[in-house]
């Protein structure tokens, strides 16, 4: 799958590109308005990561151009401005998601996976990972065809890990994804440990061929066994 990153900050662009390449995406980069516009008009992308503040133009104008050309690619706006107006304008213009800098790469992965799933699979929004099958629309999980009952948070944790399989997931990133931005700074997120423990136990009890490993000092990692 092809992703275009439009971002004027070279270091940030490089990090995002590296992270997405690890996910086996085909990544293209553009650092200014004109390059981005050229690429967008010539090629088709599955997903476009769009910075709003660009030299010689606004990302929002690119978005307008894109919609005028009726391109199918999903658009995720990445902006340094956590401004409601920008967010609404972006979503109104047809962006699929809006991410505020700074973000965790794991969160970006999850968002990219999510918009791609929504576009590509049409009605069928399921992901298979070894013997685990996750239906994102129905929010159900099956292991070896047997239902695995998860509460809302456990489901969110599992899907976040699945979107970031084999990647290191920082516990702050996990907490913010599952419990929301507002829960931040609460006791260093020690409390998520008990949730992970429950989820691990359920996966193990159902002989899932995936496992959540702790990475000491940082977070967790989902691996296939």
């Amino acid at each position, binding site marked *: 799958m092809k992703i275009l990153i439009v971002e004027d*900050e070279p*270091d*940030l662009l490089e*990090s*995002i590109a*590296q*992270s997405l390449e*690890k996910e086996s995406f085909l990544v293209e980069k553009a650092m200014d308005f004109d390059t981005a516009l050229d690429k967008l008009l010539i090629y088709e992308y599955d997903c476009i990561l769009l910075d709003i503040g660009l030299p010689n133009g606004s990302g929002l104008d690119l978005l307008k151009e894109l919609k005028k050309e009726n391109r199918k690619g999903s658009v995720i706006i990445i902006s*340094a*401005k*956590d*401004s*409601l107006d920008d967010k609404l304008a972006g979503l109104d213009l047809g962006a699929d998601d809006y991410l*505020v*800098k*700074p*973000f*965790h*790469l*794991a969160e970006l992965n999850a968002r990219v996976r999510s918009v791609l799933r929504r576009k590509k699979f049409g009605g069928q929004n399921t992901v298979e990972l070894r013997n685990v099958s996750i239906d994102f629309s129905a929010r159900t999980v099956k292991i070896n065809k047997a239902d695995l009952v998860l509460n809302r*948070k456990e489901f969110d944790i599992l899907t976040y890990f699945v979107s970031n399989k084999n*990647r*290191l997931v*920082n516990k*702050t990133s996990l907490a913010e994804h599952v*419990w*929301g931005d*507002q*829960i*931040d*700074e*609460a*006791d*260093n997120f*020690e*409390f*998520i*440990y*008990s*949730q992970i423990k429950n989820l691990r136990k359920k996966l193990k009890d159902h002989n899932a061929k995936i496992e959540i490993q702790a*990475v*000491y*000092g*940082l977070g967790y990692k989902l691996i296939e066994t």
Partner: protein
Amino acid sequence: MKLINYTLLYTSIALLFIVGGWAGIFYVNMLDEIYDSIDDGLSNSKLLIIKKAQTDSTLLHKKYFGESNYSIQQISAENVSAVRDLYKDTLMYMDHEEEYEPVRLLTTTFSVSGNTLYELKIISSMVEEDDLIEDLLYAVLWLYVVLIVSVVVVNIIVLRKVWKPFYRLIDYLQQYRLGGESDKVPVGTTVREFRLLSETVSVLLERNLEVYNSQKQFIENASHELQTPLAISINKLELLAERSDVSEEQLQTIGHVIQSLERLTRLNKSLLLLSKIENKQFAVEETINFNGLVKKVMEDFIDLAEFKEVKLVCHEEGELVRYMNKDLAEILLTNLLKNAVVHNVPGGTVDITVQKDSFTIVNTGAPKALNEEKLFSRFYKESIEKGTTGLGLSIVKAILDLYKGSVTYTFSGKHIMVIHI
């Protein structure tokens, strides 16, 4: 002390001395004039009596005052006093008053047919000094009272009228909030000093507002500019942590650095949020049911509360519905609840009571009261809880200020926050 009382105090003290001094001088002068006029009368009588005595010798035998006001006695030459005319004050028994009354007495000597010497005493009834002083005292007192009353009346009228622009300015300044919506400084007056005052205040406020705005803008810009370097740092470290050649020890260090950067991010976001609230950038408002919102936010904290062994209970005693920005309402509740849970003790409780126009959060925690004055100021931290920004309650305060609500903190074994909104 009010200006009117202040003026009055000084005016009355000054008037006391002025009127008192004036009364003294007036009394002395008047007495002097009275003596003068009595003495003139006595002197005139003397001349008339001596003239008559030259022709009418019966007069020479009038040894006692009796019914008239003079007496004549023959005296020897040795007894003649050195002073020709001697005026003096003395007392004389008055039949009708039945007491001794002061009189003016003129003693003089004259001779009839060259060698016989006679002493002539003439009296004239005198002013009663004590009566005069008393009358004068009353008159002065009345004058004093009338003066003070006039001063009060004049002062009140003058203060009401002349000082009106001044009091209007004070009212204006009392209601003035830096960065809040205010009318222009009231100027309408012809008094030069007051106009100057108004203009000076106006310039001062404008300059303050400018500094305040540029400072707000600075915080916002600085926060925005920090986002990108923070993003780069965190993302680079995340990629670094994923490399296979990183040792476990290095991984831990990376973890610590990421945590610090995340903390910086949160601080930055909180500052940005504060400045946005103060800049009124949360325009979209809707009807918020706090009862529902409280339950939703509580749900978010269930896991944290369980981990901390804290019990969350919601009591609904009324329905609290307000028209405000939804994000801010949620941030308000989240920050308060987060505080109540994070600064709690194992086995503690958090009770939230929702009423018609307020809600109360009561929680267990440190067994001593927090500093109420500093509690809501930025970066104030009572505990050494790691990872907190010290901005949570400042944000609460800012949101409540925006919606003209209030928060009060009290301690009675438990920490109590009452929020009126």
